[in-house]
């Protein structure tokens, strides 16, 4: 998280904390007690200007609200900036759902621009139609891009399928036949002229872009060969979708990989916005959030693209160089290291 925040140029660091327990064996009431107990133990070490918790594995907005409530009770004042991941109306930020997916496309647009390409008319194949995938497709098609194929999980058949249409995906149309878990209804998709292919067919599409936005380790040494020759760029919407070995082979083929560190940092940027809004007790309109997100993503991307160009390194290397450099510089400026 330190590196992700650094590359996105957010004035935040990273740390992890948690409670060893299995929520599946606990009632909600017991989970609430644990959340509150945890805050009571750590209250001296956290706070809006000290350390800001956010939800991760097995925790949801509900847990954040319990923690917030306990914290505010202990310190005796309103402290919405103490924690992020809160629902809208309780200190949460608008546009949080869209942030990651939109961020992917903002980054993509900048990367293309640096290669003197426009987003209009570019073709893409997307893996995953959950939060990230959906909003990425929405923005990409809105900005004139063309999505040829989308793969998604089919809960009924317990496997994933790729839905492809050479004329491109109509986002609203497809969204209308998608359940809340990102599963597309096969029959209705067929009626709309989509061809149903095997789950990993998204990887083989004759598109210029691949956007893996589902799970990690989806592009591996054993399937990287299937990536079509038309592909110019892979934008990592998910965390760690490309294995290092596969990335090396892609780079050798001249296919660029926009790293997850940069491409999906829209989410953490929006968490930062949530904290900023909470601290100032002033909540922005959705458009305002998105405008600020865009400008952040643009400058973060520009820095990475620029460094990669100047130093002749991959985008991933550039992203890590920038983030490590920023952290090191801060440490040096503070006199922690020479």
């Amino acid at each position, binding site marked *: 998280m330190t590196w992700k925040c650094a590359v996105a140029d957010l004035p935040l660091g990273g740390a992890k904390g948690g409670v060893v327990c299995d929520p*599946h064996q*606990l009632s909600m009431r017991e989970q609430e007690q644990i959340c509150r107990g945890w805050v009571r133990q750590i209250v001296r070490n956290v706070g809006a200007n000290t350390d800001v918790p956010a939800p991760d594995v097995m925790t949801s907005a509900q847990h954040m609200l319990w923690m917030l409530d306990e914290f505010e009770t202990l310190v005796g004042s309103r402290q919405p900036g103490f924690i992020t*991941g809160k629902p*809208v109306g309780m200190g949460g930020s608008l546009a949080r759902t869209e942030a990651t997916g939109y961020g992917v496309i903002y980054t993509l647009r900048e990367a293309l621009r640096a290669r003197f390409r426009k987003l209009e008319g570019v073709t893409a194949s997307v893996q995953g139609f959950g939060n990230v995938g959906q909003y990425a497709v929405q923005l990409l098609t809105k900005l004139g891009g063309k999505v040829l194929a989308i793969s998604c999980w089919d809960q009924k058949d*317990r496997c994933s399928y790729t839905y492809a249409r050479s004329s491109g995906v109509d986002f609203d149309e497809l969204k209308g036949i998608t359940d809340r*878990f990102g599963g597309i209804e096969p029959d209705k998709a067929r009626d709309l002229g989509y061809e149903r292919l*095997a789950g990993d067919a998204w990887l083989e599409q004759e598109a210029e872009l691949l956007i893996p936005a589902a799970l990690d380790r989806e592009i591996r040494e054993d399937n990287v060969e299937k990536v079509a020759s038309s592909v110019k760029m892979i934008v990592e919407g998910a965390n760690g979708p490309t294995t290092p070995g596969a990335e090396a082979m892609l780079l050798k083929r001249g296919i660029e990989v926009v790293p997850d560190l940069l491409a999906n940092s829209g989410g953490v940027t929006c968490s930062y916005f949530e904290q900023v809004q909470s601290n100032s007790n002033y909540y922005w309109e959705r458009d305002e959030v998105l405008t600020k997100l865009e400008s952040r993503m643009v400058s973060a991307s520009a820095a990475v693209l620029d460094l990669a160009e100047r130093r002749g390194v991959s985008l991933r290397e550039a992203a890590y160089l920038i983030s490590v450099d920023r952290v090191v510089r801060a440490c040096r400026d503070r006199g922690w290291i020479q």
Partner: protein
Amino acid sequence: MTGSPTAGGPGGGHETTAPVERILGDLRERAKELDCLYKADELLSRYQASPEDVFGELVQSIPQGWQFPEVCCCRLRLSGTVYQTPGFYETPWIQKTTVRSHGEKVGDLQVVYLSPRPTADEGPFLREERRLLDTLSERIGYSLVQRELHRLRTGMHGPESGEGSWSVIIQFLRTSDPSLLRRLAQRILTHLQWHGLARPEDLVDLLPPQDEMVDENRPLPFHKENDLADRAQRSFSLAASILGEKTLLGLLQSWVDEERSRFLLDTLANSEATLERVSSALARFRSQGADEERLPAPIATALRVGLVNRFLSDQTEFVRQSAGAVRVSDFYALTERIVDPERSHGRVGGKTAGLFVAWNILRRSSEKHPELKDIRVPNAWVVPSDALLAFLEYNGFGTLHTLKYKSTEEIRQDHPNLIEAFRNSPLPPSIRRGLAMALDDLGQVPLVVRSSSLLEDRPGSSFAGKYRSLFLANQGPREERLEALERAITEIYASVFSPDPIGYRAERGLLDFHEEMSVLIQQVVGTRIGRYHMPSFAGVAFSRNELRWSPRIQREDGLLRLVPGLGTRAVDRLSDDYPVLLAPRQPQLRVNQTPDEVMRYSPRQVDVLDLEANDFCTRSLDEILRECGNRWPLIHRLLSRVDEDMLRPVSPLELDFRDGSYVVTFDGLIAQTDFVRRVALMLEVLEETLGHPVDLEFAHDGTDLYLLQCRNQSFSADSDPDVIPADLPASQVLFSARKYVSNGRAPEITHVVYVDAEAYHALDPAAMREVGRAVGRLNGLLPRRKFALLGPGRWGSRGDIRLGVPVTYADINHAAIMIEIARQTGDYVPDLSFGTHFFQDLVEAGIRYLPLYPDDPDVAWQGLFFQRSENILGELLPSFAYLSEVLRVIDVPRQTEGQVLRILCNAEQELAVGVLCEPGATGLMVRAGRPGQNLDDSEHWKWRMHMAERLAASLDGARMGVRALYVIGGTKNGTAGPGSDVDLLAHFVGTLEQREALLLWLGAWSRALAAMNHLRTGYVCTELLDVHLVDDQALAAGGGFASKIHSIDDPAQKLEMASRA
């Protein structure tokens, strides 16, 4: 209860009118008749009122029971007193009868028509009116005795009562019922003697003389009874002096009460008595105001046992359990809702009996537990069991009784014709009339017609789902509704002769029992919501939880499966949807915790009755909510609002169904109402009273909770404990478990996938993921539902994958059982997952789960078998051979000379064992009285796979231009059902002629297989094969079906051919 008036059937008393009119007329008559009787009973039981009032009012009410009340008058003469309606005079159109009290004439009762009316059975009077008149006079006579007794009783207790007030009783009985007097006198003496209260010398001359010599070959000498009254007088006098007046009168009272129940006992003991006779004896018992609580215990028990035996079941176990739980008075309502009891000797069947007993237990316990007070049962009627025989006889289907001895194939072939024949055959007229009456009583609300077999719900034979339950929307004109009801009943009757129940009965050794099946016609609980009729929610509840998702849940905490709408979706396992699971005694420990899990595993479909289409159907929840969610009672208790990644309770005000962001959680119901507590209490009370765990069906219409069914849980397939022999040879037992064992059946295991804990923990995370991927591949290769997964810690771990192999449900969905092993490391034993990562998927697919703790004392663990047996991983997945140290695949028969692994679970003993045995082993592994319970679903795909292999083996590929043949889809994936196609993929390289020849050849196979499948399963289709041809070009392109051949997640399975092109 009296029978229907036109007992003569077609051609009876009213030839001129249309059948429906006639039925209606009959019903009206019957209703009047019943009204009249009830009114009379009610009046006659007012013993404290003066005779003038009672009899005066009675004669006024009697004419209403006759066909032409406007010209009907009535007169009652009793011991010189005359009670009559105004304007009474004797006319030629008169019906009269004598009133007798204890055999002596005390008066008469007359009914006249003042002007002529059309001729009927007895002048202008109907046959039924004669019967009514006789019944009335009988009841009047009886009430006279009761009045007298009442007068005496109240007199005795009054201030006047003193020495010898019982002598009035003697005087009264001396003339009215000497035999009763004799019995009372005898009993008082026996009482004194038995309790040693009287000196023998006092008794000597009161007891019958003892003969000095009893010669067994000679009749006893006859002693003429001396003055009975005198002997009685002396006996009572003696008793009064010893016991005191009050005790004596108390004894007399209870004996008189007992005498009053004698006729009911006699009727119950008479096996010839029809249901109608029993019912009317019961009605008489009721009209006397007899109080069974005051009866001596043996009599009350005899009555209850007799009634249970007569109406409910002759199963000793059932009689024992229920006789203690029901009261005579409980049967009053039941007997009023039996269709055509006139000639019937039948019973109401298992389903009705179970529900009846359970409901009465709950009602009775509501004093102690007020929460149970308002639990209801839906209004229902019963067609008794022998009506099926009447139907068969009426339509000349007598030969069908031999059908069950035919082969299943023959039965199956005939069955469609039989259904058609049954549906087109009329029910006997008396049953039709009864049904018409039932239909009027039940009203124009949807009905469910359910089989209630006598063999059903016997210990060891759960017929759940073997017979039919049919839903009727019951809308439209009365004639149509009646016709639909009749057709539903005949269809249920046909199901008795369908191959599946017959096969099932044959397996259970019940074939030779004469199957009589009663039919339960129940109102469908619910309200009208838009065009639909459905309950707010419904479900099933079990006393024992066999699906524990946490070690904190005990078996005794029970299990609830809840669904919105009709409960049909909670009863069956669902392939594409999930009910909400709950342990009623620990409702806070939910299966799903994160909002994502809750949403993924929530019900999305609803079963409803569509009143406009007059049909039962399944609708999507979102659709119904949008259409009419606002009218759905209690909906705000069922739903939670999805608010980003938070689920919030909803208030009725904020409900807005235009966006679909709601999910069924039942959170409101659980947290805000006492529903769960009530269900838990129901389970507890029923289990305690009946002495066995129960399995309930229930529904809630938004206002009331209704009980729909109650069965013994140990009879149901999922709760059936295995018998574990105590003397299993230790060498055959691979492992055993003594913690968290659940009942339920695991199939025979031929392959074990074992992940070695130590080796696994030594891997780096990337390699751990590879283990997960390899398991996923094995899942596609090993025989479905025949392999066990054994691994350390938590299968499906996502965060910290050192805790267990990272797999998703799709990676393990063909396993038969998932076993988690917790080895002690240092001083701690890791927590197991209990399958929580995909718990509900496991439940719906019937995949078993078992945790093992090999380091516990008293458990077996043959680690060496798993570590040293030959590992066939390399054979199956050469590319994963490098994981052989970690991942071991054991072909059990190959290792053990043909044996298989059976996992026997017995939760009662808290013991599970994995034991090697012969496939299909009997003796060692016979399950308690139930071999071969429900044909395994996997039979369907196995048969298909087998036939596909045989087809391939006879395919001359060289001649027909086939290079390779593959099987894909459900047959390969082990999901094919009885009606599924067999999907084949042929790599075709031949000419057009070869193509034609191939298609012709395959077509013949296809039709032959379809015919075979029909005989096996009853599913009708003309062809069974679905063949896809791909050529080299398509193969090279790799799209469409061709992509299956090299697919990673769902690869086609290649079949061996006789030859290839």
